[in-house]
């Protein structure tokens, strides 16, 4: 089969600058919409898809397995647990039993309150949550009203570069706290939290109970903790693995996530329909041209291929423009929500999605009108108006 030269497709693009502009603009808009929708979905799912460690067991107040913030555990529980069960992870004589308070409280930034999840911890927390590390500054010291902020929490507090937050003083309730460091946790939900000393948080929040006790297992088994919770009915505890807790939490947020996913999908479909409409119109009117090419001896397949080449060229230019806009203006844009802060990340996957949809738009957008043009007998096609 004799193919049309590639130059034919490229030169054709310049024949009608208005049409070229409309097609490129249309496909750029569609690809941008799809990329934004995709990164929003991925960002939200990543924020919710926090899998805790199966080796970490949470001891929560009975009846509070749905929310650690609702849970209340006695202050003496960590000591009783450590004394009753052996086989927890131990480093330098410190046992992996972390008493914690989880509470949403507003941090005052300027005149505005920014609601952040604050976790009151002791040093054992860094042994239990071993994916958490302090990348700048130092851990909060008890009695000094210090806090470390997650990378995403720093954004919530108005610091684009988390390091700028260090040494800043922030009001929590009526107490002044100093940011002493930045914590990271491989992109997990902890990065949208603020950690402070357990005792300091107890004083500020006027709490005399813990939210939970989290233990890191070594040779001990989850069933040991379940047995302990079942036998010590006076403590009113329930044992659940961190993994199970977070998957239940994900289920709670599922309806909102589904709503966002459906909206994103609809935006993408709407965009695609609009894009097809533009490309279809751009090619469907070229019946006579197609007839002429057939008269010159080019087979239908070759003509269709040339039209697809032309369409892919224009739509991929649009896709590249959209990728540029997305990377330079939208990458890293953070969105705050009650389950934490998440960012629009233009990852390799999202860029591939953008380029892929641009190419798909080009292929499908050209095939349908090309078929319509090629279906007509040559004399009829030659009689058709441009």
């Amino acid at each position, binding site marked *: 089969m004799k193919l049309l030269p590639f130059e034919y497709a490229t030169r054709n693009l310049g024949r009608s600058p208005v049409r070229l502009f*409309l097609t490129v603009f*249309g496909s750029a808009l569609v690809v941008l919409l799809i990329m934004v929708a995709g990164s929003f979905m991925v960002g939200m799912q990543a924020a919710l898809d926090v899998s805790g460690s199966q080796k970490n067991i949470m001891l929560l*107040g*009975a*009846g*509070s*397995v*749905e*929310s650690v*913030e*609702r849970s*209340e*555990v*006695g202050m003496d529980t960590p000591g009783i647990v450590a004394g009753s069960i052996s086989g927890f992870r131990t480093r330098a004589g410190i046992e992996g039993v972390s008493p914690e308070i989880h*509470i*949403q*409280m*507003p941090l005052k930034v300027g005149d505005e*309150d920014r*609601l952040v999840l604050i976790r009151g911890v002791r040093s054992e927390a860094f042994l239990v949550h071993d994916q958490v590390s302090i990348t700048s500054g130092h851990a909060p010291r008890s009695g000094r009203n210090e806090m470390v902020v997650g990378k995403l929490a720093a954004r919530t507090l108005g610091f684009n570069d988390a390091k700028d937050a260090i040494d800043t003083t922030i009001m929590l*309730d009526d107490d002044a706290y100093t940011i002493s460091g930045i914590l990271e946790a491989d992109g997990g939900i902890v990065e949208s939290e603020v950690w402070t000393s357990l005792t300091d948080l107890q004083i500020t*929040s*006027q709490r005399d*109970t813990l939210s939970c006790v989290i233990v890191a297992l070594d040779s001990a088994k989850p069933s040991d903790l379940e047995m302990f919770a079942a036998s010590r009915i006076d403590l*009113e505890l329930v044992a659940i693995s961190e993994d199970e807790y977070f998957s239940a*939490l994900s289920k*709670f*947020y*599922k*309806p*909102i996530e589904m*709503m966002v996913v459906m*909206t994103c999908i*609809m*935006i993408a*479909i*709407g965009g695609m*329909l*609009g894009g*097809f*409409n*533009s490309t*279809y*119109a751009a090619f*469907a*009117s070229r019946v006579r041209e197609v007839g002429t090419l057939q008269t010159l001896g080019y087979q239908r397949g070759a003509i269709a291929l040339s039209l697809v080449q032309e369409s892919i060229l224009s739509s991929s230019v649009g896709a590249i423009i959209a990728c540029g806009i997305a990377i330079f203006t939208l990458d890293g844009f953070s969105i*705050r*929500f*009650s*389950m934490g802060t998440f960012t629009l990340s233009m990852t390799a996957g999202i860029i591939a999605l953008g380029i892929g949809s641009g190419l798909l738009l080009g292929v499908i957008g050209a095939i*349908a009108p090309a078929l*319509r043009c090629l279906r007509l007998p040559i004399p009829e096609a030659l009689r058709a*108006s441009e």
Partner: protein
Amino acid sequence: MRTLRVIPTVLKQIKRSPIRSSLTLGGIAIAMFLFVMVESMRSGVQEATEMTAGETTLVVYRENRYCPFSSRLPQYYEDRIKQIDGVASVVPIQIHVSNCGASLDVVTFRGVPRDSIQHAIAKDGVIVEGSISDWKKRGDSAIVGSALAKRRGIKVGDLFSAAGIDVFVAGIQETSQAQDKNAAIVQLPFLQEAARKGGTGTIVTQFNVQVENHNNLELVASSIDETFAHDEHPTSTFPEKAFVGRAARDIVQLAEVAGMLAWGALAAVFALVANAVVLAMRDRVRDHAVLQTLGYTGWLIGWMVLLEGAIIALIGGLLGGLAAFLTVQFGQFNMTMEGVNIEMATGPSAAIMGVVLALGLGMFAALIPALRLARTDIATCFRAV
């Protein structure tokens, strides 16, 4: 009359390009579906958070607390609030939810003292099944809002369990208030004991205060906060709707972001109709020349173009608007955060507004091509062929 007689011709022209018309209609329908859904959500948020004249309810909450789990006020504050000038009545309320975060279909329990049940029932609330006296008879009984009962398939006499609380359904309340139709009212002592380890004794989440004169709402609110400013548990007092707006800030923020989406949807309708009409005009230059030869005036052809834009937008708008209206009607979507409920407005106003806007935008998008065509003389049309 001629302006109406051309309608069948316009319809035929739309049907002549079925693929292109379907793509345009599909795009418009999706855009209008999104617009109507977003508008229903925005109306719901507006209705729940914007103060209205004559509002007389204040909510007293723990200062700097947002979540019902962390707002803890001593129940004895009730007597001190009652003594403040301008206060008509005070109801201590314990709120219990499964989670403070924003989600759909969250069950909210409200614990109120047995003798204050009349104040806890919505102003327009009617007990359609069961009765208040049944509610008073059992300590673990609940009056369930109609929307919650419908969503969960709850009937009077059922045992109902959510957020770690087991209750007996003693009544169903029918009301138009989102806060009430999605909540279950239970007895305060029961909730205080059932919700927390060892019970919470005399701790409540908030006080709902009725003021005698709505003009004194702000004055009474500041008097309450001043009374407890130096207490162990200082308070923040807000008019009820302002409180809902504060608590459901994520949902309000979501509605604001969604508002941009609604504008985007309208822009998409405009772009799709404009694109469809402009491209159709380019294809039909010869048809217009023939029509002019047959005696159609330029203005009549322009009118036909305007009608084409309007019809495409109207059909697309009707499809999307109707689908969104039915989705909201059957879905009865209710978002909850920090124990307050916001419902998507189920009235037809958003759908009607969407269809009217689609029609207007369709005509507006077709206006310029129509005017250009109306001013083109027959010779120019033929030259373009």
